[in-house]
Structures are given as structure tokens and as C-alpha cells.
């Protein structure tokens, strides 16, 4: 390591004031002799001073109280250690949208004629990689669905309708691809299509929760 590289590593702690005395002397000596490192130290020092001078308080761009107040309707301070939760009709509606996913998947699985059931020991759904990836996607989808349910009633009705409609289409596609995979065995092309549908769902849920 060159001197300058070594000083570069120490510079952080030096400017934070957390460097041991011996190292500190070394850094100071180097900075006196090396204009490049001295310049770098100066830039960093200015940066840190600017960072510390940033305002501690920034007024939110809009009044957030109304939104908070609305949510407090459903919450009481947890004084007794037991919280009373009133289920909102809209929350139920959102939960229903998500439920459609599960129901559609189950329905397609059930609708398959028994003759197409996975062959005994059929590796498609037990292949470790497929299973692991499918589980990961499913888990990621579940988490986003939970956020989506939370935000559902803050979305305008038209947006809710668009998102719900598209989610239903994706869920049917996922269910169809899964059913085909269960029947057909390991299949990279089918898996590619299934992952694409999962990605579409994650993307849509992700965008919907950020609206």
C-alpha cells in the first residue's frame, strides 16, 4: 500500500476525531507534505461540515396530520397492553383481492383432471432449485401483498380497480404455469414463464404500494 492509500484509509477516522495519537501524527505529517491528500482531506472536511450544518428540521411538503389522524381512528394508545382493532371494510376488500390469488391458484390445481396429476416422484415441484425459487417468490409476494393491503384504502378507486384486475390476470397465469409444471416435470421454459409472471406481480404490487 502506498503512503497515500494508507492515509486515505485513515482519513475517515482522522476527520471523525477517532484516530489514535500515533496514527494522527502520521496523517498530519503526510498532509503537510502531500498536496493531493491535503486537498482530499479539505474536501472531506468541508463535506462533513456541510453535513453537520444541514437543517435538523424540514417541514413536510404537505400536512401529514390528516392522514395520521385518520389512522388513529383505528388505534387507541396501548394502555392496557391489549389493542382493539376494528377491521375496516376497505381493508377487507383489499384482503379479498389478495385472496383471489390464492383461490385462483387452488381452483386451477383442483380443476386439473386427476390423470394429469404429477407422476409418482415427479420431480417438477420437488426439484430443489425450483422449489427454492418458487418459495422465495411466494414469500416476496406475500410481504408485498401485506403492504398493499395496508395501503389499499389510500388508493383512488380507479387505481384499485386497475391493480386488482391486473393482479387477477397475473394470478391466473401463475396458477396455470404452476399446474403445467406440476404435470410436466422440470422444464426451464415453463419456469422462465412462471418467474416472469411472478416478477410482473412483484413489480405491480411494488408500484401499487408506492403510489
Amino acid at each position, binding site marked *: 500500500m502506498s503512503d497515500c492509500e494508507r492515509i486515505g484509509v485513515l482519513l475517515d477516522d482522522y476527520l471523525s476525531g477517532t484516530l489514535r495519537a500515533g496514527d494522527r501524527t502520521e496523517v498530519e505529517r503526510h498532509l503537510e507534505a502531500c498536496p493531493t491528500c491535503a486537498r482530499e482531506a479539505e474536501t472531506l472536511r468541508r463535506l462533513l461540515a456541510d453535513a453537520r450544518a444541514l437543517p435538523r428540521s424540514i417541514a*413536510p411538503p404537505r400536512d401529514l396530520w390528516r392522514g395520521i389522524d385518520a389512522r388513529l381512528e383505528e388505534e387507541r394508545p396501548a394502555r392496557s397492553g391489549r389493542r382493539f382493532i376494528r377491521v375496516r371494510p376497505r381493508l377487507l376488500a383489499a384482503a379479498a383481492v389478495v385472496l383471489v390469488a390464492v383461490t385462483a391458484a387452488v381452483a386451477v390445481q383442483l380443476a386439473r383432471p386427476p390423470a394429469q396429476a404429477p407422476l409418482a416422484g415427479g420431480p417438477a415441484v420437488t426439484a430443489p432449485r425450483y422449489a427454492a425459487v418458487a418459495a422465495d417468490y411466494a414469500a416476496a409476494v406475500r410481504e408485498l401483498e401485506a403492504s398493499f393491503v395496508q395501503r389499499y384504502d389510500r388508493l383512488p378507486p380507479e387505481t384499485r380497480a386497475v391493480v386488482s384486475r391486473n393482479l387477477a390476470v397475473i394470478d391466473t397465469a401463475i396458477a396455470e404455469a404452476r399446474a403445467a409444471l406440476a404435470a410436466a416435470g422440470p422444464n426451464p421454459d415453463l419456469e422462465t414463464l412462471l418467474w416472469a409472471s411472478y416478477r410482473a406481480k412483484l*413489480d405491480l404490487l411494488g408500484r401499487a404500494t408506492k403510489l
Partner: protein
Amino acid sequence: MSNPALSFPPHAFSGRRAVPVPRVTDAVARAAAGDRAAFETLYREHAGRVYALCLRLAGDTTRAEEYTQDVFVRAWQRLASFRGDAAFSSWLHRLAVNVVLQDRRAERRRLRRVEPTDDLGSAPAPRDRIAARLDLETAIAALPDAARQVFVLYDIEGYGHAEIGRLLGIAEGTSKAHLHRARRLLREALER
């Protein structure tokens, strides 16, 4: 390791302003008893500080608004557990850090779960983010998640590396590495 560069305590919510303590304490007590108006007073008093913290930790105004709301809803739920042995402002500050970091961690887990693919859709844009050079705030917002969080907590909020490590679930050394990276990236962004 503590952060002597900033000598005020990490929770110094009221460190830079004179808070009329008796009134706030009174408002806290009334809010804890379920007084919504008193809680609104607390919101008016602290919203700016909470929003600034959320904004810098999240790097995104929309998320910052949501987090700010989440923080106050969570505060309302937990007021009973606030015992008054620290300043309310410090308690709220800590709560805000937890709310944001917990959610960011969950989001990172979600993203990690999804295997990287070669599809075009997930390819990153070949450019620095628009407006990355606007100013220091924008440059901070454009930092990678972990680097930004460590920078905000260490260099702006005055937390130490050990504490940051605990909050973010990373080693102290990793926190230092993130800080180094954040400072380097900021320097580059601002010099352009």
C-alpha cells in the same frame, strides 16, 4: 465506538432548539391518556424533525411522508410505554430510526429473495440518477441504501459505529466501510 465529532448525544432531538419542556411533558401525558388534540400538538412540534430524519434515511420524499406518518401512528400506539425518563423527543427519534430501518431491512430481504435475472427489466439504468448533483441533500439521497443510512446516522445524527451496527444488524467494521464509501461517493458526486 462513540462519535466524538458530534458531542451531543445521538438522540439530541431538542439539542438545537429550546423546547418548552413543561408544556410538552403535559401534552405527552394528555396524549398518552388518549387526548388526540394533545397528540396533534406533539405532531406539530416534532413533525419537521421526524420528517427530516425519515427523508434522509429513506432518500425519497414519498417514502419519507409515509414513514413520518407511520412513526406518529406507532408513537400513538406506544405512548403508554414511554416512561418519561428520556426526553420525549429522544424517544420519538429512536422510534423513527427503528420504523425506517425495519422497513428498509424488510425491503432489502424482499429484493434479495428474488433471484437476479438477466432480463432487461431489472438492468440498472446506465447513468447517475437525474439530479444527483443538485445539492448535498440530493447527493445523500442518491447514495446506496446502507451507505446513506450509515452516513446519516454517523455524520448527521451523531450515532457511533457500534450503535449503528446494532441498528442495521451489521458488524461495526461494516458500518465503517459503508461510511467510507458514502463519504467517497458524496465527494465524487459533489465535485462533478
